[in-house]
């Protein structure tokens, strides 16, 4: 059904975005704080994996 797909698409987009923003943001903060340069990357990777995991939980399990 088109409406469900539309809604799924936007929630997936939302999850991916918040994953990157949240864990990427934490990594960025750590980098600023500790004067390092790799935590942003780690944070982004953790964020995107968490988001994909969440998408799988929400939409892939049925």
């Amino acid at each position, binding site marked *: 059904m088109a*409406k469900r797909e*539309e*809604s799924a698409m*936007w*929630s997936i*987009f*939302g*999850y991916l*975005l*918040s*994953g990157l*923003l*949240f*864990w990427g943001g934490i990594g960025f903060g750590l980098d600023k704080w500790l004067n390092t340069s790799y935590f942003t990357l780690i944070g982004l990777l*953790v*964020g995107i*994996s*968490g*988001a994909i*995991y*969440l998408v799988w*939980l*929400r939409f892939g399990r049925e």
Partner: protein
Amino acid sequence: MRVLLRSGEGFVPPSSNDFELPPIFGDNAYTTKPILLVFLSVILISVFFIISSRKAAVVPSKLQFAGESIYSFVRNDLAKDVIGHDFLRFVPYLFTLFTFILVNNLFGIIPLLQFPSMSRVSFPYVLAMTIYIVFHYVGIRKQGALKYFKEIMFMPGVPKAAYILITPLEILTFFVVRPLTLALRLFANMFAGHLLLLVFILGGDHLLQGVIGLKLISPFAFGIGIALTFFEFMVQCLQAYIFTLLAALYIAGALADEH
């Protein structure tokens, strides 16, 4: 291109400055074009639906038919399909949302008005805020605050350690990203659409003032401008639809026991 142009000034490409319109009456910030357009939209919508439903008859007039088809579209295709059995009390809200956004978007291509008020970001923000309030309120009323928030934060059937990874994302998605993307999608579509029209139509106008070779190109710019106007019409209807659809889906999600 600038070398070819005879008359002095170069082309000033349209930018976000074109959206900052001066007040029409006096010196206050409350009579700018977008604000007046919003008021106009309210008047237009009210008048249209009052007139179209006033002499409601079994055999509808054309006007009544038009009004009723918009209403039944929102009622059946959006509210009933998405929200389910408890849909009726949300129809007025969704209907207002849909017509309001639709008319304000369409102002972008109506001659003489030609400014989509939703391309000023504050209007979509306020609309998204109303949705934010409505769907959280509905969810809390239906399930109780504790259960509602627990259901958002802790999805059942997930290993405990995964909550550290997931719960912040759920909270961020539900309370920040969703309303924000809702508003920004509408805003960005209207903003970009208006800018696109400005580029081709102002560009076509500017080409007309160039040398003869440029004058010959100018009709193509205008042609693309006209084609894009039709395209914009589609985008404007679609955005009003998507905004209302997502609002209905968020309400449906808050009403459902299981997400």
